[in-house]
């Protein structure tokens, strides 16, 4: 779980960090749709170029992105091999009844592979460069129109942000309790399965207690620092729509247009 980087924030001050979370979220979502425009090698090349540029711009090392894909690699390879094995057409290299390895299959496999990894990379770019709390603000904003459909948008995003605030706290507390026990001789992740489970148990009770205490401390701190639930509050986190944000969205439109131009008419590989 600790290995997953999708959904983590990487503090920094790159161009991408500074783009409004709403713009980033919109751009990220539109990228997924734009992916489906691509259908030949040149369009995929353009997309890869785009993806790499974004990864570079984020200021986070490519190694980290690669490590981020690693936990999902088996899932990707599995899907890709299904594609390869069950797509017919073009030159046939191996033919075992329903299972064939054909040129179309291989090409299709490559495309699927690209699509998967690019989605992961681009969404990682978005989450790495956006604070979770900003992302909730953005989601809240973008969902506003749904209020007309009587959806409880504010409540949903409030729940989301409380959850987001508490996940790191619980992780922190877990880390603390584990470190405290490590310092007194417990070794985690060793021994047989029952032994390992036996070591996990002494974490839970303290974790529960300390999370409760932590919640109480936090409530106290909020109170002392003047927080009252139904009073009006201003916000230091600002969603600031700037020129760069518009530029970002225009870039997405341009990307889509380019792909439309470079796309092969007629052929569809899926």
């Amino acid at each position, binding site marked *: 779980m600790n290995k997953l980087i999708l959904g983590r924030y990487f*503090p*920094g*001050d790159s161009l991408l960090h500074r783009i409004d979370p709403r713009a980033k979220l919109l751009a990220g979502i539109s990228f997924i749709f734009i992916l489906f425009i691509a259908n030949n090698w040149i369009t995929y090349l353009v997309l890869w170029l785009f993806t790499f540029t974004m990864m570079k711009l984020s200021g986070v090392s490519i190694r980290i992105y690669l490590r981020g894909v690693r936990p999902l690699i088996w899932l990707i390879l599995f899907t890709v091999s299904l594609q390869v094995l069950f797509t017919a057409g073009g030159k046939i290299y191996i033919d075992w009844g329903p299972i064939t390895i054909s040129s179309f299959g291989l090409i299709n496999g490559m495309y699927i592979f690209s699509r998967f990894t690019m989605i992961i990379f681009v969404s990682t770019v978005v989450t790495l460069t956006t*604070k*979770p*709390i900003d992302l909730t603000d953005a989601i809240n904003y973008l969902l506003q129109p749904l209020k007309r459909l009587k959806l409880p948008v504010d409540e949903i995003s409030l729940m989301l942000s409380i959850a987001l*605030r508490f996940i*790191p706290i619980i992780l*922190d507390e877990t880390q603390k309790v584990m470190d405290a026990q490590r310092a007194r001789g417990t070794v985690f992740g060793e021994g047989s399965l029952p032994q390992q489970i036996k070591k996990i148990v002494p974490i839970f009770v303290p974790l529960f207690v300390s999370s409760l205490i932590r919640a109480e*401390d*936090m409530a*106290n*701190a*909020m*109170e*002392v*620092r*003047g*927080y*009252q639930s139904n*009073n*009006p*509050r*201003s*916000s*230091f*986190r*600002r969603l600031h729509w700037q020129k760069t944000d518009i530029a970002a969205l225009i870039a997405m439109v341009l990307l889509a247009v380019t792909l439309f131009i470079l796309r092969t008419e007629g052929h569809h590989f899926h």
Partner: protein
Amino acid sequence: MSIPCIKAENVTFHYNLKKREHTITDFSFTAQRGEWLAVVGHNGSGKSTLASLLVGLRMPSTGRIYINGMELKEETKWKLRSQIGLVFQNPENQFIGTTVKDDVAFALENQNMPYDEMKQRVDRALAMVGMTGYADYDPSRLSGGQKQRVAIAGLLALHPAIIVLDEAMVMLDPKSRQDFMTLLDELRKQHQLTIISITHDMNEAAAADRILVLKKGKVIETGKPAQIFQREEREDVPFIEALRRKLKEQGSTIPDKYMTEDEMVWWLCR
């Protein structure tokens, strides 16, 4: 004489309602505007409990506390919160924001302060404590001293009239601690700040206007540093007094009265 800034009258308090053992017993004192008051006492003598009573986090079982003439009660505590700021003994208990700058802004947001003023105050407070470069860090991933600095910044940004520091500087290096003492003293002179500083550092206490000595939840003594430290029964004394006693013990003719550093140097060089 004008109304005292803080006035506590016969306050008692106990954590455990079942046991009749009081954590704070018949506690009275006053503090004038612009005064620096040091609170000293052994571990577990009730200093932090006193701090939580002063900011209205806990309510006295009996007795009253007045802040600028207004009684601190459930109904009035919210109004008084913006005038009084507390730095907790453990800075970790104080953090609410997910980044350093969000955290410093928290109390300001609660006052519904306009963004531009908040931004200015946050930047200034961070500069004062030397943490500008860490504005986007997660407060839980800082060193001990850095955490204490951020906690102090949160207080400075608020511009309260009264500040209560619960051992807020113990994890700072000697130079930073000196710098902070000077900074606070300047602010006090400029803005007539009242400072209540809980400390175990007798040299720091010796620099205060007045000292409050706590023992088992009771004020056993209050007075100017000279009065408090001169008494022979008192074991915890500042360095200069300890040296004076040592000299006396070794047969020196040094006067039998508390001296400041200047006085001692003057006497030695006479």
